[in-house]
């Protein structure tokens, strides 16, 4: 068990592409930490640099008080699950799980016993003699996890561990993985491009863009109070409403509507200032009758999301989305009003939250 600390980590690829730009990050012992970002943001490079598969151009990687920046991957005492699992196709499940022990020169009988133990724990007992090619995607993933557990490493690194499973299985695997991490208590860093996955599984997460970390926090913090418009737009299964507006005295003028200043920004705005007003569709209530301090417009589209509906209002030439509980959704074309929650609406100035 160990904490992972990155100090001023920089990675420049030959050809001048800067994948990581002077990153600082601290993952405490036992934490389940998510690296989230769009493809090409450097999250996988960051994970591979922690593993030692990429060498840092500058800065240092510290795992459990030990500076491992120049240490080979095998000497870092970390274990990694690859996106494609990388199970050895010519070995059966037992040999795959026992492979890290084989490298450590553990006796054959001992490592077979350990492999069986770990395999049983992950529900693989009846598959121990199969080859990876004879397993389903979910089973392969569990073998990959078992192999990592067998190492008893200080930290686990997962590269998109769920992206190769189909949608249904992914939800099950998500719960399974989080439970497993809780039980093992091993510091785990995982990479994902799926914000829902990061929110669901992580204790804390970092949102990355172009080699920079744009926000670090718990899923609740990142979801409720995105630090900038990039994070605001990236997090959430229904995108956040980000609307340009102007400060007019004690009120805001956004999309032609008069709105009160949200609690978070009270007393911190000056008259006539250009701002971006951000509010999640989930943090607004819908009304059919005119209400004070609300977006008023015409219902353009109603999307069924199951237990809720996503209603898109056309307000003064821009689109505003609001989530409405089932049963009370309006008909398209009707007049509607969306009231932002004052404690959840956010004001962005120059892209950063006020």
């Amino acid at each position: 068990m160990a904490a992972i600390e990155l100090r001023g980590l920089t990675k420049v690829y030959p050809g001048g592409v800067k994948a990581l730009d002077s990153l600082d990050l601290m993952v405490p012992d036992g934490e389940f930490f998510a690296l989230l970002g769009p493809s090409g943001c450097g999250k996988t490079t960051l994970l591979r640099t922690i593993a030692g598969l990429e060498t840092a151009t500058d800065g240092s990687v510290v795992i459990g008080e030990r500076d491992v920046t120049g240490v080979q991957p095998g000497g870092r005492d970390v274990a990694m699950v690859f996106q494609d699992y990388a199970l050895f196709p010519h070995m059966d499940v037992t040999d795959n799980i026992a492979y890290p022990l084989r490298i450590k020169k553990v006796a054959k009988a001992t490592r077979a016993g350990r492999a069986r133990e770990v395999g049983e724990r992950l529900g693989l007992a009846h598959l121990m003699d199969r080859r990876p090619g004879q397993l389903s995607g979910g089973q392969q993933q569990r073998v990959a996890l078992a192999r990592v557990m067998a190492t008893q490493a200080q930290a686990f690194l997962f590269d998109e561990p769920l992206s190769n499973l189909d949608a249904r299985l992914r939800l099950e695997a998500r719960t399974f993985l989080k439970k497993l991490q809780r039980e093992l208590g091993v510091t785990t860093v995982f990479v994902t491009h799926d914000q829902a996955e990061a929110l669901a599984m992580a204790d804390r997460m970092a949102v990355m863009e172009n080699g920079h970390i744009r926000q670090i926090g718990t899923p609740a913090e990142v979801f409720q109070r995105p630090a900038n418009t990039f994070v605001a737009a990236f997090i959430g299964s229904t995108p956040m409403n980000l609307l340009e507006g102007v400060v007019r005295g004690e009120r805001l003028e956004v999309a032609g509507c008069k709105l009160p200043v949200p609690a978070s920004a009270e007393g911190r705005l000056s008259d006539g200032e250009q701002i971006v007003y951000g509010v999640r569709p989930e943090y607004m209530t819908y009304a059919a009758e005119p209400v004070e301090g609300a977006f008023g417009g015409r219902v353009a589209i109603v999307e069924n999301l199951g237990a809720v509906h996503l209603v898109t209002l056309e307000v003064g030439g821009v689109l505003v989305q609001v989530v409405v509980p089932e049963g009370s959704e309006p008909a398209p074309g009707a007049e509607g009003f969306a009231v932002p929650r004052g404690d959840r609406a956010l004001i962005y100035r120059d892209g950063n939250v006020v």
Partner: protein
Amino acid sequence: MTRFVLGRIGFYTLIAVLLAFFTVPLLWLAAAPFTSNPTYEVSLPDFTVANFAAILEHPYALGSLYNSLLLAVGTAVLVVLLAALAAYALSRVRLPGRDALLYALLLLSSIITGTAAMVPLFQLAVELDLIDSQLGLILILTGGLLPAAVFMLKDFMDSTPKSYEESARVFGASPLQIVGHVVVPLVRPGLATIAVWSIANVWGNFLMPYLLLSDIEKQPGAVIMFTLYTEGGQANLPLLSTFGLLYSVPVVLMYLFVSKKYGFRFHGGIKR
């Protein structure tokens, strides 16, 4: 409908003619050794084994098959070993001008074993004191086959995902362990292909041994076949056909064995 039927008939007639064209020589090879007085025609054999007795009495026939085996296996072992190491390195390490180098080697190698290089190769062998030496011949044959083998194997290694090796690396495997535990088992079908291809190539090579070996006791089957003439200078058909059969059987057996044992299959383990 009629057009379709006529088309089919025409198609299968063509196939039958083509098949016959390729089958007749094979039939001859199967029948002639068991015929007392074979001619160029395919005829029903009278199942004599006199021809085999005669070939056994030939002073160099069996020895030449052993020589063929020695040359072929020796060359194959060298080619597989060296090509695997080179292909792995070329596939995994980025070098400027790597592809150009490979293409140049491939192009030049077709000259090395070809007729164009006959004289310089002979000269070289004399200078290096490798003339009339089976080892020297193996080295020269290896040199000729290596570029194509490297080229083919590199392609094979390129298509093997890197994450297998990275996975082993993170578990702490040394480069040699990675090669032994992971890379070789993964590319085994490729290695088998190269081995078979090398053996078949050397087995059928006439020019190089003819040129570089002078002692008839060291000559392989392909050269000995060339000496199977009667006193009158005519082709000795009983001996030729019998020796031809013996000469081709090992290669056919090898193909069957390798394709059964390795074949081309991929076990999975990488989720695509």
